[in-house]
């Protein structure tokens, strides 16, 4: 499916949130949620974005959608810089993009019916109204597996999985080219999750959509994505078109991948356990942001910020020693039982 034509180019994107305090709301510092991120999203592909909570995945998605203003950098959508577009043009431009949020209960207004919720984008943009609107909404609902008698119901009458379908229908309403999926299945159960993931794949084929798939669940990301980007503390540490579980080259991605509990007892205990937790993005560590938790860290890592380097085959890794390290997480499959728990 993947063609090499870029739909979105993100260049040196930064998003800092101000921290204010004191009587005069003085600026006390910045949360560096997204810090100098560069990547492309190709037409028709799914780019998976993974990382732990607070690493800037969601902020990255929302900044690309121009839902929150960026601090610096460029977002180029089909050759146009998104932040240059203003006023009525922006509304027109936004038809190209849709978003599905994490919690379907919170992103649907409990007081309006499904027909109105899904129809709102069509109405606001003056595309249809009245009976024609109803028919268009019905068509959308049928695409996501809901039926006519759901039209006039309220969100509370639906299960979590159905609500997520409604959100997907709403995101599809304006025929967008690009959809940000922000943790679409993290609040659903496994059996329903499979239904939602299959639906999203089918829709992508049908409408030739491009997805940015944000999730903390690595197995789901792997299932959905053509390429995977791993974020840590506001930076992309690794990006690979291959299988992140097989050929992770950054020590963080390798540790993250090994920490995922796999439903297979024969693979038990392969986790390489990282010490400590993610540091605060207000005062991120100097140099490589992963160095305080990295078991390979050397002096250079504390001083110099590693750039994303092409390691061949389109795999980009931001590590000074990428390719030289014996990450060894695969060999640890059997040896890890001796690993001590550190804190």
């Amino acid at each position, binding site marked *: 499916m993947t063609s090499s034509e870029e739909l979105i180019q993100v260049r040196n994107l930064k998003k800092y949130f101000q921290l204010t305090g004191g009587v005069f709301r003085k600026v006390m510092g910045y949360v560096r949620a997204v810090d100098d991120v560069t990547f492309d999203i190709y037409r028709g592909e799914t780019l998976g974005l993974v990382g*732990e*909570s607070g690493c800037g995945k969601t902020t990255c998605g929302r900044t690309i959608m121009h839902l929150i203003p960026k601090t610096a950098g460029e977002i180029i959508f089909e050759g146009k810089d998104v932040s240059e577009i203003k006023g009525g043009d922006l509304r027109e431009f936004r038809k190209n993009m849709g978003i599905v949020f994490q919690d379907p209960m919170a992103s649907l207004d409990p007081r309006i019916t499904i027909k109105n919720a899904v129809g709102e984008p069509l109405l606001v943009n003056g595309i249809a109204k009245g009976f024609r609107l109803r028919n268009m909404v019905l068509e959308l609902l049928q695409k996501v597996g809901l039926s006519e008698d759901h039209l006039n119901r309220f969100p509370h009458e639906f*299960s*979590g*999985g*159905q609500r997520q379908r409604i959100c997907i229908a709403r995101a599809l309403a304006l025929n967008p080219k690009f959809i940000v999926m922000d943790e679409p299945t993290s609040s659903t*159960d*496994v*059996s*329903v*999750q*499979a*239904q939602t*993931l*299959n639906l999203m*794949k089918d829709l992508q084929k049908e409408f030739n959509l491009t997805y940015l798939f944000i999730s*903390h669940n*690595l*197995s*789901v990301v*792997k*299932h959905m994505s053509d390429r995977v980007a791993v974020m840590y503390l506001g930076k992309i540490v690794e990006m690979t078109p291959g*299988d992140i*579980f097989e050929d992770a080259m950054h020590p963080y991605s390798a*540790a*993250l*991948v*090994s*920490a*995922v*509990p*796999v*439903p*297979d*007892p024969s*693979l*038990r*205990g392969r*986790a390489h*356990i*990282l*010490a400590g*937790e*993610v540091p605060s993005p207000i005062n991120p560590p100097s140099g490589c942001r992963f160095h305080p938790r990295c078991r390979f860290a050397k002096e250079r890592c504390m001083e110099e910020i590693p750039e994303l380097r092409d390691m061949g085959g389109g795999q980009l890794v931001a590590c000074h020693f990428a390719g030289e390290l014996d990450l060894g997480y695969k060999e640890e499959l059997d040896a890890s039982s001796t*690993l001590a*728990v*550190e*804190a």
Partner: protein
Amino acid sequence: MNDMVASQDDTSIETTNDIRLDSDTLLLVRGLKTNFYTYEGVVKALDNVQFELKRGDTLAIVGETGCGKSVTAKSILRLVDSPGRIEEGQILFQDVNEEGENVIIDLLQSTEDEMRKIRGNKIAIVFQDPATYPNPVFRIGDQIAEVIALHQDLSRDVLEMKIARLEDALRTNPDAENVEEITTRIEEYKSQLDSPPPPTDKEKKEAAKKRTVETLKLVRMPSAEQTINQYPHELSGGMRQRALIAMALSCNPRILIADEATTALDVTVQAQVLKLLNVLKTELDASIIIITHDLGVVAETCTRVAVMYAGVVVEYTNTDELFSDPIHPYTSGLLRAIPKITEKVEHLLQITGTVPNLIHPPSGCRFHPRCEFATEICAQQRPPREEIKPAHWIECHHPQGSMKGRKR
């Protein structure tokens, strides 16, 4: 054995003394039924739940939202709040009394006072969300010390502490005038060690604090001495979860129930906590019940598994068996619905439909409306619980897996 125990179900409380359990069975839950009386109707949250926990085992109770996992845990500790009520069943807990004999207690027949001595002391629980559970207005150390002071006899600790302090004084200042007085005092305390006098509240507090630090060190809390003076908001999620585990372990419980204890944590921190639980299990000789929706966690940490669906244990076996040969259609469906990291498929197999509303649970087998193998009998009759292979129990009319094609 089952028949013998069953025949005593109807008789009175004293019969618990006559029930025999295998010496390595720690907990036996039988026929547990819990309902919730809501305005919309009676929610049949648990229906005839049955499983056992062996000494040294890690048992997983796994299932989707609303299948009754947490209600099971709360029923074991009799923490089901109104409008919920435990209707029937037995929860037999095999404890060791002071003489070192095994005694069997039916937790559902115990008085509230007896339960209070068991909760947190013999059976402890760690709840799901570390952000809401430690009380935000008390220091971590005080909260853990409270549990210890409440349940543990600290008189010996107090005495040992006094002796240590006096000996310390002797060592640092061997030429003091009152050396003789101190040595006689030490002798006196040492003679009391076997039947220590009741300590004062202040001494008790001090001893509890000392044990708190020990417990926090046990869960690998960095700088435990400082942590006891911190408030919960000063700790990160993983540290808070460690503190909660420390609180649960502070009285050396025989059973630790972890109710979605790692769900709110990131994978790297989750891996730390799961590893910790497994290490502690061997160190403290406790047994663990892990309640989770994540089959990955089950495969990673547990020895036995009870799969629950809509308030019923549909499959109960050991972990390797469950993953290599799932027999109940729900279990195999669930396993196929998870995206695998070892292979890439275009489409995931899905279980159609959604979890039923337990006010009006489906008749017969509760899974039949979503089951691809369902026949008429499934809608009419609840399948009996049977041991289809050694130590592999299921409730199903049409077992799959290696049992496929078996004539019934």
